[in-house]
Structure formats: structure tokens, C-alpha cells
């Protein structure tokens, strides 16, 4: 009897939490199918009749795709650079012994210790005055990579140290150098950790807002999604069905990715 009571309590609690999480997302998605009046009468449930015109207009708009492509471009280079630079550095920490390596390792981990906001004002000056990359995607990619290195190096070093050391000794006997070993053995053997760090980096880059806000001007042609959301909200202030539809379109890839990933395990 007690056990059943426990189950009832547990699943009631979890269901309330699940509603707390899902209702906002569901209401947003449904809101895009409603009219302004319909939304006010019924903000949460299924619409009386589905209006597809807002979604159709947003998905058909070139601006929407521009935002998506910009986000994709920034995320692609961020992920590739984080994976490459961090794993190269982590390999020197896990497989080569040299003076000062603990110092350099700790130095890179400093990036874990404080947020981007600390550095944002000088980064703006560096990009603007010294590198002349203001209003380009590189102004976002490079600082993002730099701040992502700390945790990536931490993950990679831990993983590389777990790889069987005999492999490295055998490769040395066969005359394969360190760089060759990194490219031909370490990278192919590290796909699980590369995938994990890659997905985490991808999500944070796809969602990043502070850097684009500061490093890009008012030219919407270079704006990524999160800036696009703010633009859109600025344009249509209280036209909620439009804003909700635009948010839903923005959420779609993330939600699809998550469910897809979960189904695959």
C-alpha cells in the first residue's frame, strides 16, 4: 500500500514538473496558429481553427533563412576550431612531457574560471581597432573559441589519458612521430569525446547572444538567430502570434535535434 502511495506521489510530482516545462513551449507553438483575438481568449490550448499563414510567411521569408545560415556558419567554425585546437593542446599535455606543461595547462583552464562578460569590453576594442573584424562572423567565432578552450581541453585530456598507452609505444617503435600519432590514432579513437564536446559547443554557439549583440552592427544580413529574435520582437512588439510563430520556427531545429538524439540513444 505504502509503495503505491509512493508511486502516486512520485509521478504526480514529475507530471507537475513536466507541465511546468512543457506548457510554455506548447503555448508558444500553438500561439503561432492563432489570431490576436483568438490568443487572448485562449492563450494556452489548441486553437479553434489553425491559421497557417504566419508560419508559412516566416518559413518562406529569406530573412529567416539568412539568420539560420549565419548561425550555422558561426557554429560550424566555432565547433571545428574548438575541437581541433583544444584536442591538439590536450594531446601535448597527455602524451608529451615538457617543462612548464602544468603551468600552460592551468593557464588554459583559467578560461573556465570567469565569464565572457569580464572580457567583453576589451574584446570589442581588440576586434575593432586591432583586428578590424567588426561586423564579421570572425569577431564572434574567435572569442567564442577562446572561451570554449578551457573546458574542452579538460575533457580531452581526461579522455586521452584513458587511451591505452601501449598503442603510443607501439607507434613510436614503428617510427610514427607525435604529430602523426595525434592525427592517425588519437583523433580517430576519440570520436565519442569529440562528439560530446562538439554538441555542447554547437548548442552554446547556436544560442550565443552577447557576442553577436556587441560585435555586429545593425546590418541584419549578418545577424544570427538570437539577434534575429530580438529584431523581430522589436518590429512586432505586441503582435504575439507572429512573435510566437517566429520563436517556434527558431526552436524547431533544437527540439528536433534533441528528440532525434534521444531516439538514437
Amino acid at each position, binding site marked *: 500500500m505504502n509503495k503505491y502511495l509512493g508511486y502516486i506521489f512520485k509521478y504526480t510530482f514529475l507530471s507537475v514538473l513536466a507541465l511546468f516545462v512543457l506548457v510554455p513551449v506548447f503555448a508558444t507553438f500553438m500561439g503561432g496558429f492563432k489570431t490576436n483575438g483568438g490568443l487572448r481568449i485562449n492563450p494556452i490550448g489548441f486553437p479553434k481553427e489553425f491559421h497557417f499563414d504566419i508560419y508559412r510567411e516566416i518559413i518562406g521569408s529569406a530573412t529567416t533563412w539568412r539568420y539560420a545560415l549565419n548561425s550555422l556558419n558561426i557554429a560550424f567554425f566555432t565547433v571545428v576550431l574548438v575541437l581541433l585546437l583544444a584536442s591538439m593542446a590536450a594531446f601535448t599535455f597527455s602524451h608529451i612531457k615538457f617543462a612548464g606543461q602544468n603551468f600552460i595547462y592551468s593557464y588554459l583552464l583559467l578560461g573556465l574560471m570567469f565569464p565572457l562578460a569580464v*572580457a567583453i569590453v576589451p574584446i570589442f576594442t581588440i576586434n575593432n581597432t586591432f583586428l578590424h573584424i567588426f561586423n564579421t562572423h570572425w569577431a564572434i567565432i574567435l572569442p567564442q573559441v577562446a572561451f570554449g578552450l578551457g573546458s574542452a581541453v579538460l575533457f580531452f585530456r581526461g579522455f586521452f589519458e584513458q587511451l591505452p598507452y601501449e598503442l603510443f609505444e607501439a607507434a613510436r617503435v614503428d617510427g610514427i612521430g607525435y604529430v602523426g600519432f595525434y592525427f592517425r590514432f588519437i583523433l580517430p579513437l576519440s570520436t565519442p569525446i569529440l562528439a560530446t564536446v562538439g554538441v555542447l559547443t554547437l548548442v552554446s554557439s547556436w544560442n550565443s547572444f552577447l557576442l553577436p549583440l556587441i560585435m555586429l552592427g545593425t546590418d541584419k544580413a549578418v545577424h544570427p538567430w538570437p539577434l534575429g529574435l530580438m529584431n523581430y520582437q522589436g518590429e512586432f512588439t505586441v503582435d504575439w502570434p507572429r512573435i510566437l510563430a517566429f520563436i517556434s520556427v527558431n526552436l524547431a531545429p533544437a527540439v528536433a535535434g534533441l528528440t532525434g538524439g534521444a531516439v538514437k540513444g
Partner: protein
Amino acid sequence: MASISTETKSARRKLSPGRINRLSAILILLPPAVLLFTVFVILPVFGAGLVSLYKYRGYGPLIEFNGLNNYIWIFTKRTFNAFFEPALRNTALLLATSVFLQLPLALLCALMLYKESFINNLFRLIIFLPFILSEIASGLIWTFMLDGRDGVLAPVYQKFLGAPYFILADKTWGFAALLLVLIWKYFGYHMIIYIAGLQAVPKELLESAQIDGASNLQSILYIKIPLISYAIKISLFFAILGSFQVFDLIIGLFGASPPEAFQTFATFIYEWGLSRRQQYGIASAASIILFLICIVTGFAYQYFVMGDQSVFRRSKRA
């Protein structure tokens, strides 16, 4: 490393092929990361330190030396109360909510959901969902939820208050709404960290405890929680540092230049440096204060709390 220990000291000093190989590997593999990191993480901290000593409007050379006056300005009673105190208080509120509400909730969910089953996986997926949504989208979704006229909660306000209520414009309760959104967005992430830890707890241990007559609560308190202490420490570390950098959520929820009552450390730096006020000296001074708080907290945490499990631990092999 084996190959080095067999070499003699004199051979090491000479440029043997092995040494050239090792040296060139280090010179190829390490500098890109170190260079990029130095330019975009370390140099900016020194830059902020320098600018914090000047009056600076963001363009031209640094001319007007201002000593420590930017710091003094931040902590002068009148200006402190008006500008910096709300940011500081809100950051502290974020930290407290994150540590005392969000993490226990995440741990509770993890304990309920760590076993593999279809229904548990479904709940996990749902609870994790907000973490992958962008902060801006999350903020906008909740502006709609909380809106007093068109939002999902509008009928609730109408029923209990008898009038539309705009919590995001209410200086007293607005930030409480943000704290709710914070939990909504991040507790699933911490839950996943705990679940990963719990799944690694050996089953035999729990079974033998059960045979010895341990209650559910006892096996949670004396076996599960001690055995996932690493996961708890790591998630606590990320929760603490994360609460110092809340920025996007504020902008998404309260708009591009939030009133003082809703500022955080990060929005304070933005507002005074790059946004409305253009007082780079003051923004930089705030950056340095935030930097010092983070570094001191971070190192103290790694040293005293993480101990042997610190991220700075030496490599086992090297």
C-alpha cells in the same frame, strides 16, 4: 615517459631525432590554442585593468588618468545604492536560487529518474528540453507566459487580482519571475549530470544495503549521495560560475536596457560600457571586480572543495 627515461642526460641536451620530433610536435600543436586564448581571454583582462584606471568614452587614446576613482565611484554610497547594489543583489539572488532551490530539485528528479525505463527516459527528455533552447527564446517565451493582458497567466491574474498584472514591470516581484525562468531553463542540465553519476553507482552496493535492512532514505543519504559527490561538486561549480554570467535571459525577459532593479553583474558591464552610458572606465572597473570575485571563488572552490578532484590536478602520466 618511457622514451625519455632511457635517454641519458647528455643525449637529452643534444638535438636527437626524438627530441626534435617532440619539440616540433609541441610547437605545432600547442601554440594555436595558447595564442588565441591569450589574445581573447587573458589580454582583455589586462586591458580592462588598464582602462579601469582611466576616464574613457570608448574611442581615441587613453588620456584622462583617473586613478582608482572608477572603483571609488562604484562603491560611493549614493551611486552604489543607485547602480551597483541592485546588480550585486540580483547576482546574489541568482546564486542563492541556483544553489539552494535548483540543485536540490535537480537531485530529487535525478534520484527519481536515473533508472532506465521508457517513462523515465521520457521525463528526462522533457525536463532537459529547456536547456537546449536559447536564452533569448526562453526569455521571450516567458514574457508571453507572464504577460498581464495576452499571456497564459492573464486569466489567473484576472481571477485572483481582479485586474491585469504585469509582473515584469513590477520592481518588487519582477526578478522573482526571472528566478523562476532560471530554474525552468537549467535544472534539467544539472539533473543529467547527477543521473550520469547515479548510473555509475555499483548495483551490488545498493542490493547488499537493502539486504542489510537499509531504508530507501538511508541508501540515498549514505550510499548514493556520497558516491556521486564528484558530480555534485562539478555541477555546483558550474552553477556558481553560471550565476555570475546571467545576461541573455535578462535581455530576453526585460528587454534591451533593463531598469536598474533588474540588472545583474553582466548587464551592468554591458550597460555602462558598450550600451547606453559609454563610461568604459566604470564598466572596466566592474569587469575587474567580477574577475576577482570569480577567480577567488573558483580557486578557493577547486582547492578546498574539489581537493584531489580539482580540474588543476597534475596529469597522472606526465
